[in-house]
């Protein structure tokens, strides 16, 4: 079996790196390419434990990520994670983090965008580029309250949809929540466990015609998303 034609960027077989310095060390070549391509958008880059971080402007993050995905020299075809960080220091901005991986070039790149304090927490969704961002961005919205513009279905995913206490991973969120235990339990028990699943979530809508009539009745009548 012949190997598929791949770019010649992969030169050596994968091996565990040893003696990786804490900061510094060889930078991911994509960072320099991004600096050259988007000189005004790339704020700074850093290398920590051999992993390169690219900090970009919030309004250009989608452009940079699209270029990273589509440029034949980069081909970051795999989105590992979308998450966010809030620091103890109230002056520090909340940071949205994308973890990108280039399977072809065997590279890992961390892209960050800092959301300025005081402005609404909004950033463009990368869902048009990576369908994997769907649930990741929903989780990020649920935990931090960051709105992803262009997300097709931005609602809570971990907490239930009527959850009224806020966004739990924010630093101003009390560890035990805002309500008393009794109130939390009362609200949780008031939820209808059958109302957690929507037609679109089950992706059963496409197959509606193939379902037995009884199940179609059931889906049509009662089971709502609970929004």
């Amino acid at each position, binding site marked *: 079996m012949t190997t598929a034609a791949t770019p010649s960027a992969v030169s050596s077989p994968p091996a565990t790196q040893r003696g990786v310095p804490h900061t510094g060390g060889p930078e991911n070549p994509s960072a320099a390419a991004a600096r050259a391509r988007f000189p005004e958008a790339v704020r700074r880059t850093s290398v920590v434990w051999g992993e390169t971080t690219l900090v970009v402007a919030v309004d250009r993050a989608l452009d940079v990520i699209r270029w990273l995905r589509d440029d034949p020299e980069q081909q970051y075809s795999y989105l590992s994670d979308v998450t966010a960080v809030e620091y103890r220091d109230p002056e520090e901005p909340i940071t949205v983090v994308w973890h990108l991986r280039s399977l072809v070039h065997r590279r890992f790149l961390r892209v960050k965008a800092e959301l300025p304090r005081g402005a609404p927490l909004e950033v463009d969704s990368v869902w048009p580029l990576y369908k994997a961002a769907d649930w990741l961005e929903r989780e990020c919205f649920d935990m931090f309250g960051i709105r992803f513009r262009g997300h097709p279905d931005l609602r809570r995913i971990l907490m239930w949809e009527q959850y009224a206490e806020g966004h739990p991973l924010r630093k101003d969120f009390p560890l035990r929540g805002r309500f008393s235990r009794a109130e*939390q339990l009362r609200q949780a028990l008031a939820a209808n466990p059958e109302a957690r699943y929507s037609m679109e979530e089950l992706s059963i809508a496409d197959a509606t015609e193939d379902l037995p009539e009884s199940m179609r009745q059931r889906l049509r009548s009662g089971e709502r998303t609970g929004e």
Partner: protein
Amino acid sequence: MGVTTRAHLPTRVAYQPQSQEGWIATKLDFLVNWGRANSLWPMPFGTACCAIEFMATAASHFDLARFGMERMSFSPRQADVLICAGRVPFKLAPVIRQIWQQMPQPKWCISMGACASSGGMFDNYAVVQGIDTIIPVDVYVPGCPPRPEGLLYGIRLLQEKVMRERLSDTRALRTEISPDPSSRLYIPPPTIDELSEPFGNSVNQTRSGL
């Protein structure tokens, strides 16, 4: 008959084949309880690491089948014991209550492990502080997670509890309990929260500075 006996419990059924041709005399309570206690069908509700220990308990080395529990009931409608193994987040609270309500009478509940019994180390916004705030619990098994021996001991305690039940005891009628605001014993949840300041109790824990 291999019936577990303790001094305070009904004694073993004496049966002498020479003199008793095809009949025995016993108490109905004993017979019913004996049948129930030795054929408890568990409904495993495993949400966390306790479920691993529960699986070990059910596997061949510890062999839950010795106590008549070889049949795991993955439908609550054919189950006698709800074994809640692991932490229960608030999002699961209505689910576990619905499962409990779907189980037919008579039914019992074992709360396995620290998290199911009290919330354990997860004293945070997401985790129910003990499933006894949602459903009645018969036996609490401490541990994080409990060893299989611990769970087996809890099951033996539950069997003992089942053996003590009396059909004539109306208190043993297992009605579904829901809070009755007209009762003089009813305390509204906000009042419980107020009363429990500043120390808190197992259900309503006092807010810390965070």
